[in-house]
């Protein structure tokens, strides 16, 4: 029987691409979305690409919704073999321009949401003596960057959580992997990029820098060869690997930057890369 896969945040972008990719590979994919209005677009995409996706409602911030959906999958499939924690929101803005409520919301979804889903999925996986938990983090979970302070904090948090968890559940036969994509052009970028409410305020001491940073980020995304399918393929590889790695970066540029950071001596990377980043935006 084919393995059952639960993906959160599968209504758009990387989640939807991954759902379709895995379904075409023969996995039994449960594409879960936080808004019921997203059902048609997911079903349509599946039809277009000639595969079957089972669409279910799941709001990662709501424990009862998580339990209900997991029960449904267990009833239908008999097991939950893979959970892909993909649901996430972005927040762009210098720290002082981000409201506490906006920052909390990022953590509710990106961190506490993933933890809640993990908590409910683990007992089934432990009982089955097998399972694979995947966390979609970001290169921003490895390297901090300006105007993404809260987002990076949330992705760093998931990195620390998943790395620890991998050691706790490995003896039960449960694997944990973290996927770290570069910024990739998806709806998250074009439509829903999560700009902090105060970031567009000309009174902000960061206003001009933020405009410049957004411009640079746009240029970076446009010139990036990384595509959603690359994330889907990476996840596919992880699922097929007998001994999957803990971390996998998606995007050659991002991988190169992370590599530089690791191997440049002392804080050379921080001195060079971070001051360059500051200079590009402020001219200072």
């Amino acid at each position, binding site marked *: 029987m084919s393995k059952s896969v639960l993906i959160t945040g599968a209504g758009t972008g990387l989640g939807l691409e991954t759902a379709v990719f895995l379904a075409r590979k023969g996995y039994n994919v449960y594409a879960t979305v936080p808004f019921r209005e997203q059902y048609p677009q997911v079903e349509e995409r599946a039809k277009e690409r000639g595969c079957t996706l089972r669409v279910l409602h799941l709001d990662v911030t709501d424990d009862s919704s998580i339990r209900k959906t997991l029960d449904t999958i267990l009833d239908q499939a008999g097991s939950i073999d893979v959970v892909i924690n993909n649901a996430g929101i972005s927040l762009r803005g210098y*720290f002082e321009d981000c409201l506490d409520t906006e920052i909390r919301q990022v953590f509710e979804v990106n961190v506490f949401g993933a*933890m809640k889903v993990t908590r409910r999925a683990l007992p089934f996986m432990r009982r089955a003596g097998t399972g694979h938990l995947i966390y979609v983090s970001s290169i921003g979970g490895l390297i901090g960057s300006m105007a993404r302070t809260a987002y*990076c904090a949330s*992705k760093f948090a998931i990195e620390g959580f*998943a790395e620890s968890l991998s050691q706790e559940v490995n003896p039960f036969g449960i694997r944990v992997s973290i996927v770290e994509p570069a910024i990739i052009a998806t709806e998250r970028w074009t439509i829903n990029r999560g700009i902090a409410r105060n970031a567009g305020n000309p009174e902000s001491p960061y206003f001009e820098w933020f405009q410049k940073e957004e411009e640079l980020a746009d240029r970076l995304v446009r010139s990036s060869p990384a595509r959603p399918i690359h994330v889907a393929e990476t996840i596919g590889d992880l699922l097929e690997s007998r001994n999957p790695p803990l971390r996998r970066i998606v995007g050659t540029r991002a991988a190169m930057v992370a590599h530089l950071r690791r191997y440049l001596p002392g804080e050379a990377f921080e001195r060079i890369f*971070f001051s360059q980043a500051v200079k590009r935006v402020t001219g200072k």
Partner: protein
Amino acid sequence: MAEVVLITGASMGFGPATSVYLAKKGFKVYGGVSSSKEEELLQTTAAAQGVEVTWIPMNLADSVSIGLAVDSIVANERRLDALVNNAGLLLRGFFEDLDEDEIQNLFNVNLFATMSATRAVLPVMREAGKGRIIVISSVAGRLGTSTGSIYSATRFAQEGFAESLYQEVLPFGIEVVLIEPGITNTPTWTVERSAGRRVRNSDSPYFKWYLESEQQFGKSLEQSRIKPVDIAQVVHRAIVARRPRLRYVVGRKARFALFLRRYLPGEAFNRIFLHEVSRRLGSIDSNE
């Protein structure tokens, strides 16, 4: 005029040692405390060392209270040169044995209080065109370990926050510094006080492993050669250095582990570590 420093959670962890050390070095030190018991502890410590530390009430779960504390310091002193985000709690337990409210509390104290205090001091520092924001993290902010999933999540988050913020405020002459101590013996982070409330439930599938981890942790605490004053010294260095580093690791073992992780090829470090942990936990089961 003396430079003014605010230390959050001044009675916790490295707080008393750091407050006293900085006061001895001539700083005007404000220590944030959340109860009269904490205030007493801080005062007794300072008096015994013959220095003065001014306490200031601060509820770490409440950003308004943190903001008020900062406002009153600025009103008194007309300056605030450094913020030391020292408030921090430890939480040990396998993830499935930790409760939502324990997780929230840890994020409130370790991460969101850091953010609130930082938010409160930034305008003053921007106006002054200088300032230091010190974030006391942990080696657990760089390495995740079993029974430390939530603790590491909060420390990693502080790292991501500080590293991003570093780039945002550098043009204003404000420097952000992370300090990462290894396991240190302090009165607040004992074996008993840092455990989640459900960890000793014998129905937990992790129960035996937890007991074993507790022994290990107790041993590490006993063997630790890092003293709170070592962290205090590094905090001082980070405040007075002309050009501070972004990160200071405190403790030889911590430095060695981070070195291995960085320079062993690929994921060799993680693989070996994971294998070792699984082997150890597995051997506990087979001893039944």
